[in-house]
């Protein structure tokens, strides 16, 4: 193959990598081997060969198409996203705000004198009021909490799988083992061997509101869940504002905080407002239909303020509840003593919610962890 073409393709791979796609040397080798097999003057065929060897997720197709247009067709195109979305700009609190907050801490300081340790204070502090340092401390506390939890029976709701494992009091015969043991006794099974079904963690689907004031709570909750389930395996995470986006793969391995902030920029319009109903519909249409929700525990984090018609929220919650094993709604506003679920969206959703929790500080997240380890269907709180 012409060396120029090889260089061209390798550079194209780098462009894709910089845009955030995973393009390893193996994929590049496949692309080149593929191009060797076809007539490279046919642009359409070149497109398919590159796409099929370099892309492995539907989510990346749009990005690939834009890169292909820009690189091979020299067409003007919008800048390749994803990477620049990850450049994080952190908003610093204004000085005045900070002072006000310190005054508040002063008040709580009195409580500390009455026997509250600094950690204990932090555990009761509303997530939205944490500053940078405190957030870091809280993250550490979360990790500690997760470590303290009993690991042997990992504290997550489990369900019976169809998989079998050797067990001395199981219910199904372990025929392979039995047969071997029977050899010695001429075909009589003197010793018996059994297998039993294993229990596996239930899938956990998190759908969190990252618009405006909700972002701080969603961030804390996602960090918490990831600390709790360690690897993040079996947790599917979605973020929404005016639109919905899937975060599962972004949260794996990378800095979850950055991933959430990037998501917020993608799904929140500056015009403000949250479209809970439309976002839930998008979720049900795309992911519920593919049975992602079936048998899962679904956790929704939102204050329930719907910008548009609340009846859509009710309808989509009904669809969601039909498929899920249980639905938990976390609303930080519930942490305030005189909160009433009056917001239209929240009222419409409540009939389909099994557990309604606060989740505005560490203590309430501990409660959530407790609930997650033992929730059963249909008992609205």
């Amino acid at each position, binding site marked *: 193959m012409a060396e120029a073409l090889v260089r061209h393709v390798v550079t194209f791979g780098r462009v894709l990598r910089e845009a955030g796609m995973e393009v390893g040397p193996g994929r590049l080798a496949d692309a080149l081997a593929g191009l060797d097999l076809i*007539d490279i003057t046919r642009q359409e065929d070149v497109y398919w060969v590159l796409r099929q060897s370099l892309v*492995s997720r*539907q989510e990346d197709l749009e990005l690939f198409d834009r890169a292909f247009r820009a690189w091979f067709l020299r067409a003007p195109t919008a800048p390749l996203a994803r990477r620049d979305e990850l450049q994080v700009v952190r908003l610093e609190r204004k000085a005045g705000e900070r002072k006000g907050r310190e005054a508040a801490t002063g008040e709580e300081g009195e409580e500390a004198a009455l026997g509250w340790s600094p950690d204990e204070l932090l555990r009761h502090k509303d997530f939205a009021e944490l500053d940078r340092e405190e957030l870091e401390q809280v993250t550490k506390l979360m990790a500690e909490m997760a470590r303290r939890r009993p690991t042997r029976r990992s504290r997550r709701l489990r369900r019976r*799988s169809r998989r079998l494992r050797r067990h001395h009091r199981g219910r199904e015969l372990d025929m*392979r083992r*039995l*047969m071997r043991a029977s050899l010695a006794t001429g075909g009589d099974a003197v010793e018996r061997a059994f297998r039993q079904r294993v229990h596996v963690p239930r899938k956990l689907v998190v759908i969190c509101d990252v618009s405006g004031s909700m972002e701080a709570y969603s961030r804390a909750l996602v960090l918490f869940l990831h600390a709790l389930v360690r690897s993040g395996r079996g947790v599917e995470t979605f973020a929404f504002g005016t639109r919905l986006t899937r975060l599962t793969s972004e949260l794996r391995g990378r800095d979850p905080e950055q991933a959430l902030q990037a998501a917020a920029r993608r799904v929140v319009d500056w015009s403000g407002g949250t479209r809970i109903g439309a976002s839930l519909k998008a979720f049900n249409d795309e992911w519920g239909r593919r049975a992602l929700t079936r048998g899962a525990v679904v956790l929704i984090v939102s204050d329930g303020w719907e910008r548009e018609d609340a009846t859509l929220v009710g309808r989509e919650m009904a*669809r969601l509840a039909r498929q899920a094993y249980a639905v938990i709604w976390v609303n930080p506003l519930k942490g305030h003593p005189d909160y009433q679920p009056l917001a239209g969206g929240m009222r419409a959703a409540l009939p389909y919610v099994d557990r309604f929790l606060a989740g505005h500080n560490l203590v309430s997240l501990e409660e959530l962890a407790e609930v997650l380890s033992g929730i059963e269907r249909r008992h609205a709180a």
Partner: protein
Amino acid sequence: MEIGSIDAMERALREAGYLPDRGLATALFLSLKLEKPLLLEGEAGVGKTEAAKALARVLGARLIRLQCYEGLDVAHAVYEWNYSRQLLHIRAAQEGTVSEEELFGPEFLIRRPLLEAIESPDRVVLLIDEIDRADEEFEAFLLEVLSDFQITIPEIGTISAADRKPAVILTSNRTRELHDALKRRCLYHWIGHPTLEREVEIVKLKVPGVPERLAEQAARFVQRLRRLELAKPPGVAETIDWTQALAALGRQELDAEIVEQTLGSVLKYHEDLLAVRDETLLELVEEARAAR
């Protein structure tokens, strides 16, 4: 049959009764030539499984299908020992001793799809359907099999297909993200819904003798449905079933009444049926009937 180019693949698939778009023909061609498994994703009903069957017809090869489900294990995917035969064999030997090698020999082996595909002396097409339904542990196991095309049975040894690798097609509905390692092994193709022209062509192929006008109108109607926000947009499979029903009823073209009566074979969800009725339905029928 040897396939030398994308054009040849396209032609062969057509002759085998499957109308691919250029992308799918390219994907199948590459997968054969590079000897790499092909991962197919796409909405329900776009013909993922059909593509594997068509490939088998093209190659004149046997199709071996492994349908995945939660809890699928080695005993059901690869092999199992025939315990009742083993037991009878021990009994029949009476006082004579039975050695372990004898008992765990090839004649007592029940071959499941993966072993069958690896062991087959002829080339086969191995379809691993809905891989996303299997457990992650199974996926890891599968990764091993797909890397070196060999299976080890402790009692017998290693069985390898290195010199006649099966053509492997995997399908997924994306209910969960597959491991990157598995994806790296595979070429990837996303099958979208077909264009109007191609859908008409598919309907005419699959419903022999269908009136030209009916095929066109039905395809156009379904294409319009896909643009609505439905819980489950209909796939090509639905278009075919529906047109088949309409043709069986002796229809020459669509009208509001017959569409209303038969829409249940296109839309499978109650809320979708509720969303498409009255004016919406009339409008769609009118648009479908309007000449190009």
